[in-house]
């Protein structure tokens, strides 16, 4: 569902066969290639386009090292999405496989900031061999600030091999002075473009074959002041006259605005039928023979010719507009081809303006009629936008609304909200109120550009219209659903989640099942809102729906986004195994789609997997996945919390490997990403990660500075930062304060089911108690943490706490008597695994020395911990030894295979192994199989 790209806008105008050579201007254009920007700034009719296109064909295109891209801009390119689309499309003519991902990302309802897209484009351009010349014609038609800013950004970061040429009638609002000052600008302006006397002579005598005296040439040059279009008109006027000298004298002595004077002359000289053609087709932006035939109602036209009785050579033309267009082209009557196939043409702008005005003044009644014909032809050929342009010119707003309604949804989906807004706002308010669908559409546009206040009145207008009973049930349901969804979004923007959820539920009730696209978006928003409120079940339910709807409607961005949120929830609840499984399933499911259409947020599934693997201390795999996540996801999409988190985890990884400098760089990158985040909920103060790093580097002073600053403000509090504060306080010796925070966080996490945080809090509490010399409490807290953590394989949460934690774990192994609390169920093997993961660890036990299979001995201390395999586990182990596979064991014990897998995991863990063969070997060593 891509924006259709008009190839005629990308077409480099072909030079005319006979042109006056202008070598010094060509020289200046060549010279300009050494700089960043060439600006050709002069009013209409000075031959800008002719000069540049001629130069491209003669010089630039000749060298195979140069590639040229061209965009003929028009008013519609004031929509930033459209502007960028044409920019990329033009560059693709020079380099075919450029920017494909960009198209996908750009043409979405809320494309990322333009700088992100341009940065990616710039990087791609920088990688190209050879030079690329990008020419933008008619830049004066752009008055949209966002587009100017985009171009300024592009110019500020121009890769060395990209050269920009801007053709315009007025100096654009770009930092030209800056470029001039740095010698980065090459300019051709009015004085440069005026025809010199020599050039005038060459044009009039050689190109136009007029054979004028030097005096006549000089007179014309003086009167026209070297203005190209003036000279062209003068030449045309002279071509048709025998009394050239008289004409020139009269012309010279007259003060009349020369274009007016000469156009009148040239126009009067044309046969009637040509005049009619010119006037009537002047309303068209572009001309093709079929379109002209339709506008002129060619049947009538033919009749008119035969009734004129063949007084001019052209009266014999009975064929339609094609011959006419060719005649105009041959006679230099200000028509220029827009493609190689002589299918499309346009008039020179100045000429068209004059013709249009003349038409309006002489045959005003014809104008709406002509536009109607053009509109009908375009509509019949599926060019809705052009049909609309002509319809609006007739003030037939009802018809315009009819044309607009069906195409707005896909356009918004492609990021062309601005265009849609302009069209709807061109309609009278009274009409809009009668069109609920358009009200809703405009409301969506306002939702997308954050003009929340304007939404409610539109919704009320829509509802009033729907209440009149003029619309069928299906339409009413659909539009009421949209209205409810919009109210939901508005409520979110006003920071009122409960209200938002209510509206969203209403929306889901109204919206038809078939509207899967919107249903996917609404349920996704519901899910995220529930998640943020800690309402896990509803969140999971709605996110799963969102995924399903997303897949069904091809909205993979939502589908994957839903997966990621679901995975995050699992991690928050400490369900790491399930989360990892979900990551793998998502990758398996969505990776194949990546070939056709890049999926920017797939990368973050890898990030989540990386986070989990990091926790499990599988650092190599973790690093791979985190890097993959950043590679797939970053740069071209809006900075999301996941990109930041990916960088944070990579930083921790480097820290764990002792690479503190690398860790520092990554944290700085993460901070940078955080700065650009737009979703304020996720944008938390990241300086605590810096504080963590300083702590790791034993650099307490900056960490304390952060801590004091954080404590002094009441806003911007976040649990993650609170935990960091607790750490810093603990390191500083403020144990009581630290404990307060930890208990509070721990309790909140426990009651909310956020096991991930609960474990972290318990771990730190243990350290805090130990610091306060309260060993029993310390060990109790640690034991609780271990029992929660073991089934899910947590490692780094403990190991990242360093030597104090190692000491505490060792202590725990040696004092089993304190572990009477039934909640503390963990295995000694687990503790040993953790200890082995510390950097300077020396193993206390050696497998081969274990005598009693039910005991794990600490050689140094000779104490024992009992953590036997339970009855069921022994059963499974025996069946395993008998050579049965999991399904067979399951059948044998009348249990589900997943239960057997669960027992196996426990067995492995208790025996300190990873696989079946090892388990059996260990069992044999420990003499377990009697």
């Amino acid at each position: 569902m891509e924006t259709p790209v008009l190839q005629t806008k990308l077409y480099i105008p072909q030079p005319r066969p006979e042109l006056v050579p202008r070598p010094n201007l060509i020289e200046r254009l060549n010279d300009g290639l050494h700089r960043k920007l060439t600006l050709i700034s002069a009013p209409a009719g000075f031959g800008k386009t002719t000069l540049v296109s001629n130069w491209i064909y003669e010089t630039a295109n000749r060298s195979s090292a140069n590639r040229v891209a061209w965009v003929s801009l028009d008013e519609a390119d004031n929509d930033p999405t459209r502007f960028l689309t044409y920019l990329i499309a033009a560059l693709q003519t020079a380099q075919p496989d450029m920017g494909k991902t960009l198209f996908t990302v750009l043409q979405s309802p809320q494309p990322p900031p333009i700088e992100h897209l341009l940065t990616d484009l710039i990087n791609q351009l920088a990688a190209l061999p050879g030079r690329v010349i990008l020419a933008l014609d008619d830049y004066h038609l752009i008055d949209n600030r966002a587009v100017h800013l985009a171009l300024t950004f592009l110019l500020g970061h121009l890769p060395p091999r990209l050269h920009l040429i801007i053709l315009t009638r007025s100096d654009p609002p770009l930092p030209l002075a800056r470029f001039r000052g740095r010698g980065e600008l090459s300019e051709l302006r009015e004085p440069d473009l005026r025809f010199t006397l020599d050039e005038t002579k060459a044009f009039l005598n050689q190109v136009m074959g007029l054979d004028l005296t030097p005096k006549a040439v000089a007179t014309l040059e003086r009167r026209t002041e070297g203005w190209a279009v003036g000279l062209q008109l003068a030449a045309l006027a002279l071509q048709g006259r025998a009394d050239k000298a008289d004409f020139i004298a009269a012309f010279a002595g007259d003060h009349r605005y020369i274009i007016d004077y000469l156009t009148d002359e040239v126009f009067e000289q044309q046969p009637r039928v040509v005049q009619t053609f010119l006037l009537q087709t002047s309303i068209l932006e572009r001309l093709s023979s079929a379109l002209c035939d339709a506008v002129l109602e060619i049947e009538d036209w033919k009749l008119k010719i035969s009734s004129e009785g063949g007084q001019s050579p052209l009266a014999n033309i009975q064929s339609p507009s094609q011959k006419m267009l060719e005649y105009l082209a041959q006679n230099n009557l200000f028509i220029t081809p827009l493609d190689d196939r002589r299918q499309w043409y346009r008039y020179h702008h100045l000429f068209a303006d004059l013709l249009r005005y003349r038409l309006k003044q002489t045959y005003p009644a014809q104008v709406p009629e002509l536009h109607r014909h053009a509109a009908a032809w375009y509509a019949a050929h599926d060019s809705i936008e052009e049909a609309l342009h002509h319809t609006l010119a007739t003030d037939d707003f009802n018809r315009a609304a009819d044309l607009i309604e069906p195409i707005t949804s896909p356009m918004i989906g492609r990021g062309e909200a601005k265009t849609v807004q302009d069209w709807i706002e061109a309609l009278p308010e009274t009409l809009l109120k009668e069109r609920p669908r358009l009200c809703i559409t405009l409301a969506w546009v306002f939702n997308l550009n954050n003009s929340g206040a304007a939404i409610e009145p539109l919704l009320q207008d829509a509802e009033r219209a729907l209440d009149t009973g003029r619309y069928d049930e299906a339409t009413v349901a659909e539009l009421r659903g949209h209205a409810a969804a919009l109210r939901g979004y508005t409520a979110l923007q006003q920071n009122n989640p409960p209200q938002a959820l209510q509206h969203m539920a209403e929306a889901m009730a109204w919206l038809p099942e078939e509207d899967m696209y919107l249903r996917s978006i609404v349920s996704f928003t519901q899910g995220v809102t529930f998640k943020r409120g800690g309402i896990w079940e509803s969140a999971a339910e709605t996110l799963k729906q969102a995924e399903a709807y997303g897949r069904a409607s091809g909205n993979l961005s939502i589908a994957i986004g839903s997966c990621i949120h679901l995975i995050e929830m699992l991690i928050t609840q400490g369900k790491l195994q399930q989360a990892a499984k979900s990551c793998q399933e998502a990758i398996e499911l969505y990776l194949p789609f990546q070939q056709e259409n890049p999926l920017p947020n797939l990368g973050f599934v890898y990030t989540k997997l990386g986070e989990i693997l990091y926790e499990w201390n599988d650092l190599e795999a973790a690093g791979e996945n985190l890097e993959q996540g950043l590679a797939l996801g970053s740069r071209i999409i809006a900075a999301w919390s996941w990109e930041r988190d990916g960088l944070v985890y990579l930083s921790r990884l480097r820290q764990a490997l002792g690479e503190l400098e690398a860790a520092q760089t990554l944290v700085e990158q993460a901070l940078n990403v955080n700065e650009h985040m737009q979703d304020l909920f996720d944008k938390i103060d990241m300086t605590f990660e810096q504080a963590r790093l300083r702590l790791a580097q034993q650099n307490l002073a900056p960490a304390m500075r952060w801590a004091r600053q954080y404590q002094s403000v009441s806003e911007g509090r976040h649990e993650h930062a609170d935990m960091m504060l607790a750490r810093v306080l603990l390191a500083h010796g403020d144990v009581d304060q630290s404990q307060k925070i930890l208990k509070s966080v721990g309790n909140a996490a426990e009651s909310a089911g956020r096991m991930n945080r609960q474990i972290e809090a318990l771990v730190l509490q243990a350290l805090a108690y130990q610091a306060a010399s309260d060993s029993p409490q310390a060990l109790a807290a640690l034991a609780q943490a271990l029992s929660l953590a073991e089934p899910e394989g947590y490692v780094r949460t403990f190991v990242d706490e360093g030597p104090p934690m190692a000491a505490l774990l060792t202590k725990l192994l040696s004092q089993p008597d304190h572990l009477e609390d039934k909640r503390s169920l963990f295995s000694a093997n687990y503790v040993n695994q953790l200890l082995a993961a510390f950097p300077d660890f020396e193993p206390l036990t050696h497998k081969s020395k274990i005598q009693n299979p039910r005991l794990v001995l600490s050689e140094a201390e000779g104490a024992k911990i009992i953590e036997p395999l339970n009855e069921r586990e022994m059963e499974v182990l025996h069946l395993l030894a008998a050579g049965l596979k999991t399904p067979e064991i399951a059948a044998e014990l009348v249990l589900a295979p997943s239960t057997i897998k669960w027992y196996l995991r426990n067995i492995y863990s208790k025996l300190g192994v990873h696989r079946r063969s090892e388990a059996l070997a260990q069992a044999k060593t420990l003499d377990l199989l009697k």
Partner: protein
Amino acid sequence: MRLNHTSSIPSDQPRHYRITIQGHLHPRWSEWFENLTITQQPDGTTTLSGLVVDRAALYGLIIKLRDLGLTLLALQSQSADRG
């Protein structure tokens, strides 16, 4: 002594302007230029004068001059009580 009142008109209100361009422009162009009065002057220039609705309209007029390739020589605002 008559005070010049032009400066006390708020900037979004209509004002009288007098624009002078090089060359003679036919009065039939009046409609093109938002119905300003077009007067050809003996010195080879033309004046366009009349009420301009607001700033946006003024800049629109200037762009129209640009697009026809006319040379702008002078732009003056006139007090309301002068035609």
